[in-house]
Structures are given as structure tokens and as C-alpha cells.
């Protein structure tokens, strides 16, 4: 993975000093709340319901064991003993004291970490495929490009006060695992006819209040020009994006207002000036960065480890975990392991300091010392020998990190919601836990099969509810918490935005509502059909009928 050179380290160290002084001036009354807010947000610091929340950047989700141990230390020393993995592959601490945040940042800097631009109206942490470098369907490793873009976007002086936040994701595989269609800029690595690397560029996607799927602005930008192309997009957005209404300030609204053709014309007119300028990437720089993402020292192993097969036959619980949480690796004899953070006894994405230390140990013992965080709020050991899987499973199971439900109904994406977040309309964690409690039978979960259930506590959509096969959105009705259900959303290559099925529900109704939706699916599905495929084939009517009953649906149609 990328390691800092003295330049990278200096920038992070100088950031610590800068933020230490900003915090001092705020606490001394020299900075008002309004003046301090954007400064702290650009350092990932929110003021939450109970305490400040600090969001630590994990660039494209990649962590070393040393970094994970430091996160464990911070959780133990400055928080209540746990941390939270976010839907942008970052880590959050919910309970740090404002005055110790500079100390936390100084500790993070010692392991090449920071909280730069994890919030605020600026270019945010760049996200990517959690299986980068190990997935069989990868064309081009996205990690060096993410790092190049990270450096370019860090403290970019022109784009620190954009109309609104700006998110970039990069994918380089057959399957989109980075939700690139729902980003302000989505980059898909590809090769042209001559075999040269470049990017298909999508723009104006996003979730939030107005979910929109990104549109293609160009089908190929050669790699040398990706920074200048992104700068042209950002400059048009910075100059002409709306600043009069927070809800209409994302780039997607500008792209829709102008139309993609006119937006592209403006961007490419701007690009004429920057193209071939000094920000044009050089082969030497790309090679320098790519040199950090070397292939680990894989052993030559048989494609199928005999012991692994025997262990699966002998132990059904291990076999169940292996079937769901172990994924194919591009190198024979190796596997990708998903360490589930969806233990029903915990908030989705939460992990304790003790668990973090253990994960770091397993990474050192079994996976070349690296860990990845996923936007689906799990952790990944990307390079485990098949012969080590049983040992990893036993250890993970002993500490609650082997819930064998990856990609199933209870592998819920869930924002922190009203329990923590000051923006939330409703709690989301108790809804997730109630659904997990209702669906606690593994055989039933396996029968239901691949499905994505996503929960957001408000329209900001941190829980990605718009692209959940089942999406749940917390809404406020006269000061009460209600939940709106949508169906048919999807991430990946066939990204779609879910449609709301009807009136919203009280929290206590939610497990029943999900049961009814699942019952409709089980009754309607054709052989081999996944949940999303059934919804797409049948439309929403059978599900509305199942949830609201015949009388309610008829009345609704009549009234309409």
C-alpha cells in the first residue's frame, strides 16, 4: 500500500499544527461557531447529539495493521472503546472531546493517517473497490489512481469552498463495487483500442434528497489528462453550481439544469485551457505511486486446497461461513475474507478496540499486514491462503466477527442515525437490529439469498437507502419517527433508484413489513431468481398488496 514520503508526512504534520491552532482560537473565543464550523468539518469533526464525532479518512478503504492498532488505541483512550466503519470506507469515533481532537490527529499522523476533507463542502475521501488488486474481474488496479487523485485533491486551494460536498469514486473491474454511478464524479478505468489506460467519466450522480444516476460526460479520457479533466469539471461547478439553496447545491442539480450536453460543452471549453498544462500526469509519477501497490509475495499453491475442502465437509458452520464470507481470489490457493461487522448484538459497522487489535494480528499473520474497509461496512482480509481459512474463521467466530451473512438480508448498510447523528430524523440502528432479530434463522436467510437492505436515518442518505433492494428511510412526521420503504434500488453495474411503496410505518411495524415483503418474494420468485430480479419482473404491485392488503391498495387506486 502507499507509504508516505517526507512530503506527505509534512503536509499531515502541518495540518495537525494548523488544526491545533484553530481549535485553540475557537476555545479562546477568537473564532465564532459559524467560523469554526467549516474548518472543523474539513477535518471531519461534527458536533453531534452527545459529543463531537471525528471521522478519520481511510483513503480508498486501505489500512495497514499498524494503522488499525492505532485506531484501536484511539477507541480505547479517547472514545468508549469502539469505532464505526462508514459507508465511505472511513472510520468514525463518536465520543472524543473537542479539546483532545488535536492530540488524536497528532497520534494519527504518526501512522500516516488524518481526517482531512472527510466532511465539508470540498472534495471528500476518494472511495474504490474493496477488492482492488485481488478480484478476478479487475482490468486495472484503481488504487494508484485513487492515490494520485487523493494527493491532487488534498488542500486544493480553488475547491475548498465548493457549493456543496463533492465525492469521487474509482472502479477498475467488470463489476462496479464502488457505486460509481451515484457519485459526483464516477471514474471507470478502461483501455482504448490501442491498449492505453484511461477513464470513462460519469458526472452528476448522487443520493441525498434528489437521487440521480450519473451521466457519461466522456467515454474516454487518457490517463495523463484525468486531473486536468477533473479540474475542469470542478471549476465549472465551483463557478456555476447553485449556492442559494443547500438542497440544490450538488453538481447533479447543475448537470440536470444545463443538460449533460451543455455541461460537457462548458467543461471541455474549460479543459482546453488546462489540458496539457502542468497538472498533466507523467509516467514517472504514476510509476512512483504504482510502485507502492506491489503484488504481495504469493506462494505457488494448488487452486483448491485439499484441507480446506475437508474442513468444509466436516464442519457445516465453517462451510456456511465459507460459502458467504469467503470470495474467489485471482491467485490460485488464496481467498478474500469478509469479516462481518453485522453481529446482531452490535450496531452495523461498529467494531470494538479489542476486535480491531485482533484484526490487526490476523492481518499480520494471514494477509500481508493489510486490511480493507468496505462501503457496506465490513472489513476485508484480501489475501488469505485457503489453508488458513479455518484458523481465521475460528478466531473471528470467537470474537463475533464471523457472522456468516455477507450479502444477505441481515448484512444491513445502516447510518448511525438518530442515536448519534444531529442531522437524523429518526433512529436507524434499532431498526436494523430488530430486522436482524426477526431474521435470525440462517437457513431462512440462505433461502432468501442475495439481497441488500439499506437504512438511512434522513434524506442525506448516508445509509444508501436509494440503492438498497429494500431501502428504509427515517422521516419525521410531526416530531415522530416514521419509516418509508422503497423497493427496486440497486448498486453495481445495473444501478437503479428504489421506488417508495406507500405510506410510512412506525418503528415497531418494521420487522413485520420486511417479513411481508420477503413473503411476497418467496411466493413470486421463479427458479434461481434473486430478490431484485423478482422486483424488476413483477413491479411493485404484488409487494404493495402484500404489505398494505387488498383494501388499502384498492382505496389508494380509487383515490388516485
Amino acid at each position, binding site marked *: 500500500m502507499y507509504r508516505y514520503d517526507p*512530503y506527505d508526512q509534512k503536509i499531515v504534520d502541518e495540518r495537525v499544527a494548523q488544526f491545533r491552532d484553530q481549535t485553540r482560537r475557537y476555545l479562546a473565543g477568537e473564532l465564532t461557531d459559524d467560523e469554526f464550523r467549516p474548518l472543523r468539518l474539513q477535518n471531519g469533526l461534527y458536533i453531534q447529539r452527545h459529543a463531537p464525532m471525528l471521522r478519520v479518512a481511510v483513503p480508498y478503504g486501505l489500512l495497514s495493521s499498524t494503522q488499525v492498532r492505532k485506531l484501536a488505541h484511539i477507541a480505547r483512550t479517547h472514545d468508549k472503546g469502539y469505532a464505526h466503519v462508514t459507508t465511505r470506507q472511513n472510520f468514525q469515533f463518536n465520543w472524543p472531546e473537542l479539546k483532545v481532537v488535536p492530540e488524536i490527529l497528532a497520534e494519527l499522523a504518526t501512522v500516516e493517517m488524518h481526517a482531512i476533507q472527510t466532511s465539508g463542502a470540498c472534495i471528500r475521501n476518494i472511495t474504490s473497490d474493496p477488492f482492488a488488486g485481488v478480484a478476478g474481474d479487475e482490468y486495472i488496479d484503481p488504487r494508484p489512481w485513487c492515490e494520485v487523485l487523493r*494527493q491532487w485533491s488534498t*488542500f486544493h*486551494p480553488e475547491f475548498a*469552498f465548493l457549493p456543496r460536498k463533492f465525492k469521487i469514486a474509482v472502479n477498475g473491474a467488470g463489476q462496479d463495487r464502488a457505486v460509481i454511478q451515484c457519485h459526483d464524479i464516477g471514474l471507470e478505468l478502461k483501455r482504448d483500442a490501442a491498449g492505453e489506460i484511461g477513464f470513462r467519466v460519469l458526472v452528476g450522480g448522487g443520493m441525498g434528497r434528489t437521487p440521480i444516476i450519473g451521466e457519461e460526460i466522456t467515454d474516454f479520457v487518457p490517463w495523463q489528462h484525468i486531473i486536468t479533466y477533473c479540474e475542469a469539471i470542478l*471549476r465549472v461547478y465551483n463557478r456555476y453550481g447553485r449556492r442559494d439553496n443547500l438542497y440544490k447545491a450538488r453538481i447533479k442539480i447543475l448537470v440536470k439544469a444545463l443538460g449533460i450536453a451543455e455541461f460537457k460543452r462548458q467543461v471541455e471549453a474549460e479543459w482546453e485551457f488546462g489540458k496539457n498544462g502542468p*497538472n498533466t500526469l*507523467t509516467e514517472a509519477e504514476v510509476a512512483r505511486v504504482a510502485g507502492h501497490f506491489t503484488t504481495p509475495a504469493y506462494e505457488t499453491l494448488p487452486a483448491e486446497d485439499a484441507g480446506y475442502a475437508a474442513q468444509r465437509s466436516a464442519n457445516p458452520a465453517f462451510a456456511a461461513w465459507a460459502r458467504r464470507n469467503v470470495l474467489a481470489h485471482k491467485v490460485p490457493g488464496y481467498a478474500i475474507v469478509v469479516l462481518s461487522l453485522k453481529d446482531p448484538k452490535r450496531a452495523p459497522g461498529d467494531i470494538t478496540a479489542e476486535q480491531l487489535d485482533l484484526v490487526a494480528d490476523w492481518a499480520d499473520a494471514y494477509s500481508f499486514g493489510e486490511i480493507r474497509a468496505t462501503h457496506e461496512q465490513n472489513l476485508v482480509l484480501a489475501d488469505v491462503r485457503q489453508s488458513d481459512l479455518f484458523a481465521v474463521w475460528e478466531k473471528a467466530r470467537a470474537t463475533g466477527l464471523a457472522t456468516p451473512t455477507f450479502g444477505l438480508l441481515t448484512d444491513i448498510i445502516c447510518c448511525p442515525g438518530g442515536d448519534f447523528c444531529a442531522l437524523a430524523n429518526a433512529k436507524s440502528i434499532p431498526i436494523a437490529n430488530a430486522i436482524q432479530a426477526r431474521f435470525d434463522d440462517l437457513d431462512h436467510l440462505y433461502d432468501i439469498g442475495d439481497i441488500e437492505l439499506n437504512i438511512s436515518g434522513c434524506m442525506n442518505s448516508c445509509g444508501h437507502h436509494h440503492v438498497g433492494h429494500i431501502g428504509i428511510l427515517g422521516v419525521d412526521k410531526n416530531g415522530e419517527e416514521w419509516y418509508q420503504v422503497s423497493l427496486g434500488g440497486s448498486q453495481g453495474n445495473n444501478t437503479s433508484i428504489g421506488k417508495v411503496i406507500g405510506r410510512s410505518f412506525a418503528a415497531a411495524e418494521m420487522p413485520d413489513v420486511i417479513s411481508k415483503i420477503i413473503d411476497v418474494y418467496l411466493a413470486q420468485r421463479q427458479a434461481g431468481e434473486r430478490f431484485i430480479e423478482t422486483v424488476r419482473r413483477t413491479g411493485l404491485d404484488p409487494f404493495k398488496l402484500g404489505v398494505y392488503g387488498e383494501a388499502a391498495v384498492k382505496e389508494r387506486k380509487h383515490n388516485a
Partner: protein
Amino acid sequence: MPKLIKNGQVIDDAAQILVLDETQAPEALTLPEGPLFVPLAVWQAHKGQISGRASVGVWLDSHENVDEIADDLEGITAIALNFPKFTDGRAYSAAALLRSRYGFKGEIRAIGDVLRDQFFFMQRCGFDAIQPKAGKYSDAQLEEALASLKDFSTPYQAAIDQPEPLFRRTQRAA
């Protein structure tokens, strides 16, 4: 006298920022004596007389487009770009465009809601003069705030103050 940060130092500056109220027609205005920044509308109405005058600059609000003065730049010695709120970042692009696309060599001054924690970004985008609102900082605070111009010693990306990105300026070890 109002204070100004110019080329990294605090200096006195007497220039007046002329603001029209709604009843004043730009055409009918008699320009006051002394160093002055006039609004875009006044510039456009009077540029025949004031173009080339060293004591008169023009100021643009954040929604006003620098393209509108592109053809006048030879006769303009100083341009002030207003930050109605410090979170309104349009002037960063405006300054960068004036320097890079239009080759403007005169003073570019940040005015309005200008805070020390933005100084570094302003300088990088081509502002060589920074004028926080009168009373925002004491003289001592303004001297102290000069340190913010040096928040980061070696930024990554190309900008106006440093037209080459780090990867072209230095040989970084692999």
C-alpha cells in the same frame, strides 16, 4: 487607516471600496477623489474616463463573472474580489482565471468576509492582497494571522503561486 496584507506584510491602505445603494445610477455617479475600487457596473459606465487611472480599481461580487472585464484588463491596475460569505468559494476560481487565463499582473485583492484560515488558499489562487473587514482583527491579530499564509510549506497540486505540481518540482523517492 484600514490595514491590508500585501505580499506577506501588513500595510496601511487608504483605498475606498465604493458600494452603490439601490437608488444610485452608475452612470450618474460622480466618483470621489482618492484611491478607490468601483463596482463592476460603475466601471462599465465610466471606463472611458477611468481606464488606466492607477488610483481606480474595480471590484467584483462573487456572482459577477470575470469574463466581463477580460477586454478591459489593460486599463485596470487592481481588482478586488468580494467574499459575501467566507464559505462562498467562487472568488478562488475568479482569481485563478484572472492570473492564468487572462494573464492579469496587477493587484488582486480579497475583500469582504475574509478570514485568516483562508489566507493560504487565497494566496495559492493568485490573491496578492488580502483585506479583512475593518474591525475583524486587531492590529496584533492581523500580524499574528500572517502565519496562516505559511500553513503548508509544500503543497501537492499546481496553482497560481506554484505553477508546477509537487511531482514536477521534485524528484520523489519511490
